[in-house]
């Protein structure tokens, strides 16, 4: 396949369409899914969702046999759509494992390699029209305290109301982060960084509000989603205090050549329009004993991942020895995503 980027301008789209048609011809010769190839669209041709898939049960309630059938159906469909051998894994959670994550905000330099690695690994939609990222890095401004910008009278508000302080701007660190920043170079002098993603709460508000139990907490502590069961009501998006969940507003845009064919049913398999998705602690990797993509890519080692039930794990050592806190602990969601400082 020729390189194509769907987020480009119209002209580029046209050329890539021509290229596509040419290559589509080759595919037909190779007798690869002829029917799907008739659609002359640069996006992956949609293979038909079978009736069996449309009327399948919620994944958690399926018997092992039904799960296997569902997985095989998906493998066939995805392989056809993306023109390569796609595997869909169904590995259940491992006994004696509770996944936890710790992030060193002192080390994070805000390079956002984690964001990019996550997108590449987890098959999110990309392009201008619909870009989904599961990690957001907030840039936190360090506060500046200005000697001159003060009201020495102690009456800073109108109507002569005494409100207490005499600084017009908050002193010290300003707890107002924002995730759009495009610096020449990171880390920036006057900022520190605060990455956020799904906190994999032990008491997840999103799970509680889901009317069809399509999102649930697996025994290893990962909050997963059965994309085939989601009705798209977005209650979970409203309930999540960490803004971790994303919705596929349109048909996801996942170019064939960028598609990661090693997938998990509850994790990074390609999604459809109208369903919610979020970080799954790279369930396709971690249940096979690998690091998550974001841990693997972090250039400064700010990200730690491991089994909270294993007393000798790195994550347990971090929790025992470092200054650890959780985000919005007041909400009693019990996140398994910790922040720490050395």
């Amino acid at each position, binding site marked *: 396949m020729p390189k194509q980027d769907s987020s480009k301008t119209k002209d580029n789209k046209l050329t890539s369409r021509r290229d596509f048609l040419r290559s589509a011809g080759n595919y037909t010769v190779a007798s690869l899914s002829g029917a799907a190839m008739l659609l002359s669209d640069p996006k992956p041709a949609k293979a038909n969702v079978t009736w069996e898939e449309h009327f399948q049960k*919620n994944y958690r309630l399926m018997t092992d046999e039904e799960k296997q059938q569902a997985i095989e159906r998906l493998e066939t469909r995805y392989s056809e759509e993306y023109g390569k051998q796609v595997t869909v894994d169904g590995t259940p959670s491992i006994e004696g494992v509770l996944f936890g994550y710790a992030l060193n905000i002192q080390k994070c330099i805000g390079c956002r390699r984690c964001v990019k690695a996550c997108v590449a690994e987890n098959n999110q939609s990309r392009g201008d029209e619909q870009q989904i990222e599961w990690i957001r890095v907030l840039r936190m401004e360090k506060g500046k305290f200005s000697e001159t910008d003060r009201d020495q009278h102690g009456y800073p508000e109108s109507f002569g109301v005494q409100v207490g302080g005499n600084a017009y701007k908050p002193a010290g660190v300003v707890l107002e982060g924002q995730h759009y920043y495009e610096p020449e170079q990171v880390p920036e002098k006057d900022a520190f960084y605060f990455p956020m993603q799904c906190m994999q709460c032990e008491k997840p508000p999103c799970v509680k509000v889901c*009317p069809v139990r*399509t999102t649930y907490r697996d025994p290893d502590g990962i909050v997963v989603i059965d994309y085939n069961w*989601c009705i798209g009501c977005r209650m979970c998006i409203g309930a999540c*205090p960490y803004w971790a969940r994303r919705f*596929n507003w349109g048909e996801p845009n996942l170019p064939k050549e960028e598609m990661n064919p090693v997938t998990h049913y509850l994790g990074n398999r390609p999604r459809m329009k109208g369903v919610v998705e979020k970080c799954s602690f790279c369930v396709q990797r971690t249940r096979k004993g690998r690091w998550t993509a974001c841990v693997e890519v972090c250039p400064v080692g700010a990200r730690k991942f491991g089994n909270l039930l294993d007393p000798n794990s790195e994550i347990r050592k971090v929790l025992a020895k470092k200054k650890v806190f959780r985000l919005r602990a007041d909400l009693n969601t019990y996140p398994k995503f910790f922040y720490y400082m050395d």
Partner: protein
Amino acid sequence: MRFLQFVVDYLKAGFTGGLLFWAWMLFLLFFIMLWGYGEYVQIANGMIVTNLNDQVSWGFYLANFVFMVGVAAAAVTVVFPAYVYKHKELHRIVVLGEMIAIAAVVMCLLFVIAHMGRPDRLWHLLPVIGIFNFPHAMLTWDVIVLNGYLLLNIIGGYYYLYKKYSGGEINKSFYLPVVYIAIVWALSIHTVTAFLINTMPARPMWFHSMMPIKFITTAFAAGPSLIIVVFLLVRRFTPMKIADEAFHLLSQIVVWCLGIALFLTMSEIVTELYPATEHSLGLQYLMFGHNGLNSLVPFFWTALSLMVGSFILLLIPRIRKNLTLLPFICIAAFIGIWVEKGMGLMLPGVIPTPVGEFAEYTPSHIELMVVGGIWAIGFFLLTFMLKGAVAVLQGEVRYRTESSKQAVSEQQAEAAT
């Protein structure tokens, strides 16, 4: 057989009318077609055709949903005085109130379907064949109370009409329990809808226990306002007689509920803005804007002025009892509450986002088409149901046995010769 005849006669009566009637129905039909088109585009392309996004994922559809649940619940302002206080004038037109409730609930269900990303998977919600996350998910409570309310009103309204039609006695031990359950149930639909959004600490603007009572008071102001206008139209365009007394009681309900609603709004504003914590950013954005992002500000103040203005006007008995002025004040109150409780509640709840990002939202053309179309469906249903109901109540449409039919046709034949 008799019931089938009822359905046929009711449909006939509902779709009989003069030029004005057909012009009105065609006008609505135009918007219903736009709804069909909008839904088609949205289902074919996904929710991307709306202006909803990651920051503002709940918008125009849910705003209208919340408002219409209130209007549906407000049928109780007719039913309650009629059955609990034995208000004679309202008792005669109770069925008309139930028709308004039915149309409003149907609109609610359509708004929810428009909001869903995967309406094709609606069956996942059905108990037995799907999974119904009851009692954990508040949305499942809402599904139960809304559908239950629809059913209660259909049973209550049409049982009464059918008995009128067929000339049978109303079985009170069946009918009255339905009515009383429906009264309590009406409160439940709006309470649960309030719980649906105020049980999420992630959205501090909504996270207060005043939500259910504020919903009910605004509903009992907006609902009877609509009912007054509809009843005045019924009185104007049909032979149905509705006494002035009925309007006087309803306008009193409007004025007091409006007053309480304004008091609650004031309490909320003081509680939020006095300490002015970060949790009040949504309300601040609604009232004053945020760094130039102030598209909601004019709407909020207009809505508040409409509510305060109509409250003050309605307090004056001479104006409240003037049935030429009343509908205009009612329309003003209705629009004010629609803005304040619809978009004025939905948007500052989701803006700013939990990470503090402000993003402005205006509905897209598709959203406008779908919402406008659903309103048209509501009015279409309402017009048809009211026409049929009035015909039955007036005795114009009655069950006729074969022999009496024959008598009628013989009479007609005689008259022709």
